[in-house]
């Protein structure tokens, strides 16, 4: 009997290890496939890799903060709109004051403020957080659109001087920002009680509350972390292009969800949540979409790559969920 149990646990652990390694292996495979595709088309690989990094870094930054929310078993679809509003107010602040430090402060205050507002509304009205974030997405987008259009950016957007942050638009700076943010999140998530309690809350909120863990407290911490991620994403968005239009960061909200799932984290959150899933999944998703765009000639038809990405997404969710159908508790 004891041997059988040991065998079961052993198999379960192997399965766990496989699922843990799978996202990393998938990222590596996608990277190799992407490189082969670029080289075979005689495109410039070094430049394409830079493009992939630029496209992935904002998504990875915002998604890393968002992991804290997803761990609680909730999700925030308004993060793209928050990024847009943070960038908009940042640009407006600089154009009014010509003070870079103040611009950065406003970006962070807006990112964290928007995120906190979502969680506070959910607490006040006692409704699921994702419901408030759906409403927030519309509100924040509308406010940003109004601010941009009323400041002369109806079609061309509003912008800071092109040279202001151009010096920061290079991979080393962005790698440092990403690495620092990831290290902070990794520490909080894996080595403090905040991460542990959030996983507990996401896995079994009733038990967690019965043990005295405050849902509101850890929800607020999760949203603050997501807000910082939003602010960093907004700042790097302005670093990449000095202008903000009504469409800026428009796809981030949904891409975060896809990235986190691609990174091997369950949508339901809980103890199987992994902080690195945002990083691995974010770059996997960007590699996949760009690979498909290269292989399927862009002129052949719009939307084909999105359809294939969606099928891939469903496959990944299906494969990942196989392990969760076991009766074993996560260890």
């Amino acid at each position: 009997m004891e041997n059988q149990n040991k065998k079961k646990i052993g198999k379960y652990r192997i399965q766990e290890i496989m699922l843990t390694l799978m996202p990393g292996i998938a990222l590596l495979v996608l990277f190799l496939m992407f490189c082969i595709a670029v080289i075979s088309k005689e495109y410039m690989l070094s430049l394409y890799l830079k493009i992939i990094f630029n496209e992935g870094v904002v998504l990875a930054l915002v998604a890393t903060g968002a992991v804290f929310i997803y761990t609680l078993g909730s999700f925030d679809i308004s993060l793209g709109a928050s990024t847009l509003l943070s960038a908009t107010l940042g640009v407006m602040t600089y154009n009014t004051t010509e003070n870079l430090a103040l611009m950065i402060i406003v970006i962070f205050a807006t990112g964290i403020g928007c995120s906190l507002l979502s969680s506070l509304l959910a607490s006040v009205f006692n409704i699921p957080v994702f419901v408030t974030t759906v409403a927030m997405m519309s509100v924040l987008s509308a406010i940003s659109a109004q601010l941009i259009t009323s400041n002369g950016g109806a079609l061309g957007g509003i912008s800071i001087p092109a040279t202001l942050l151009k010096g920061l638009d290079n991979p080393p700076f962005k790698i440092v920002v990403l690495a620092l943010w990831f290290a902070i999140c990794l520490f909080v998530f894996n080595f403090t009680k905040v991460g542990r309690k959030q996983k507990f809350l996401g896995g079994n909120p009733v038990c967690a509350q019965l043990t005295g863990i405050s849902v509101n407290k850890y929800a607020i911490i999760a949203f603050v972390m997501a807000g910082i991620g939003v602010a960093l994403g907004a700042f790097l968005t302005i670093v990449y292009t000095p202008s903000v239009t009504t469409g800026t960061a428009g796809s981030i909200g949904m891409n975060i969800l896809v990235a986190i799932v691609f990174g091997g984290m369950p949508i339901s959150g809980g103890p199987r949540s992994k902080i690195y899933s945002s990083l691995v999944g974010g770059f996997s998703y960007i590699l996949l979409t760009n690979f498909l765009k290269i292989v399927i000639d862009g002129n052949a038809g719009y939307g084909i790559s999105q359809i294939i990405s969606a099928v891939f997404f469903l496959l990944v969710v299906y494969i990942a969920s196989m392990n969760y159908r076991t009766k074993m508790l996560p260890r």
Partner: protein
Amino acid sequence: MKAKYANFAKKATALVLVGAVLTGSVFARPKKAKNVKIGVLVSDVSGEEALGFRAYYEKYIASAYNVTFKYTEQLTNAEEEKSAIEKFAAQGCKAIISLSSSDRVTQLQTCSDYKLYYAIASGMLEDDQYEQYKNNPYFVGQIGPSMETEFQAGLEMGRYFAAKGVKSVSIYGAFIPNPMHVYRTAGVLIGLGATYGGTNDKNAVVGQLFGDSRVNVAKISSPKVAIKSYFQGFGETTTDELNAAIQAKPDAFLSVGMATTFFTSQLNAAGIEFSDIDSFTSGNGKAMKDGKLVYLAGKYSSSIGPIFAAVINAVNGNSIRDKGNAISLSQNYLVAKNYADFDKFYTSDSGSSPIFDKSKLDSVIGSNVSYEAFKSLVENN
């Protein structure tokens, strides 16, 4: 459990195989002969005007010249535009033609960074932006309606309805304070015989509209034609304003852009005659033939031919410059006041025989083309 492992392994293997097959298909494709690759930035991938432009480049120009056009997917913001240019650079494109306007200055700077020739095929830079970048050797130029042309288009529209004897109108200002729409609206008001803030001077009206960021109806004095309502903004966010404008029962609905995209069915249903500044597309033809569209100032599909000629010249080392500066030429609108006019413009610019056909473009492609000859071709068609 074994079955589950086997199932898992099968699915994982299938994923890798799918990827390998897709990658393999890349190797299997025969290489095309070397030709010039030009990237095209587009923000509209489904509108009739955009499809007309694309068909002209891909079906007519690409077969007439040794050129491959590589199109972007729908670009919605400046980040996507910049990333698209970088991808075109990585793919070996020699030039970029822009039909997307989220951030044209960043587009130009990015092209310059990657040594790609850059041209604007629709719309123009603002005057101060053009002055700043006109010396850039990678900036080929811009061909589109100038602000003066935009003002004249609005002015003619206003005059048309005033002469027609309408007693009341509603005005749609599209995306004011976008400069193009500001100038058109100023033209419409003055054309209707109105004053704005007590003046009918073009520059004064334009200045006030920029300052107000919209039309303040209280500042309009219009003795001949009553302005019953005014609104602006994206179509999906202005349903209430459109309904109010229809309820006011004006004799005509004057739009300075996008009404044919947003409001055609509602205005047709309400039986209100309307006008717009757009392009000669089949949808607008239908609205003019069977609906209430009575006045259309528009562009035609091959109007983007001359900018291609300028770009291919630059790529071949024969840049056409205006005293060393990038080209900046204004293209006039054609005006249809009935379906017969519309049909004449629409059919004269068909896919196989466009207004800017190969023989016309050949006259300005080569090593001995002067700026004057190029200008003449653009302004006389």
